[in-house]
């Protein structure tokens, strides 16, 4: 879908969603506005989501939570709990696919898979310790 202009400028759709998010935020009553700005700031630092659409999904989900709380009159403390960091981390975990670290996690798993498949090259007793699998050369 992405055309070459968007490759240069970033996705237009994400930008549109970002503007809509910012606009909706301004309609929140003051304490809720302060709370969402605080959580948003923390998430931008901690979650390091690099995919624009995942980032926007995260912020829109957050906004929905805070908007619902505001219209129900749920106190901020009841929403984020005694430990707001705990809440924010639990929340951010849902969007881990979009984090840059996701790539490195995959790479580490693949490196270890590759290493575990190989048998030690060293001769001697230790060579016998590598478990053989079907399909391994004899």
């Amino acid at each position, binding site marked *: 879908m992405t055309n070459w202009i968007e490759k240069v400028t970033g996705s237009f759709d994400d930008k549109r969603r970002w503007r809509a998010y910012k606009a909706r935020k301004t309609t929140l009553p003051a304490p809720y506005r302060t709370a969402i700005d605080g959580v948003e700031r923390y998430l931008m630092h901690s979650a390091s989501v690099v995919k624009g659409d995942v980032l926007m999904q995260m912020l829109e989900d957050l906004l*929905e939570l805070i908007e*619902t709380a505001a219209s129900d009159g749920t106190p901020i403390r009841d*929403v984020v*709990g005694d430990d707001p960091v705990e809440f924010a981390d639990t*929340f951010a975990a*849902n969007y881990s696919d979009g984090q840059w670290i996701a790539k490195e996690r995959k790479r580490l798993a693949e490196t270890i898979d590759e290493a575990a498949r190989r048998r030690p090259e060293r001769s001697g007793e230790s060579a016998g310790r590598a478990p053989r699998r079907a399909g391994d050369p004899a």
Partner: protein
Amino acid sequence: MGRQMTEMLKGTLEGIILAILALQPAYGYEITARLRDEGFAEIAEGTVYALLVRIEQRGLVDVERVPSEKGPPRKVYSLNAAGREQLDEFWRTWSFLAARITQLHDHIETRGERP
């Protein structure tokens, strides 16, 4: 809520929410209220919401949006077949863990005081 309690709940809260939804479909705030009734006090609404987002992403619930008089439409969550399967798995895992930990505790108790 103690640190240890928070840590232990972290791994089980998703299953607990599925168990509550197995009884009947519910709004997010109803789930938090039910948790409180069941003795799980002090669980933040936001934490429950975060887990509901995850449960929804993984396709364990069906979600119906109901328009609300004020604020955004409210989501009603109901457990679907995949969710029920996940819940069965949760109970199996829980029973296994509970049995093992109790057994370990009994072993230590019966050995009496340490030398």
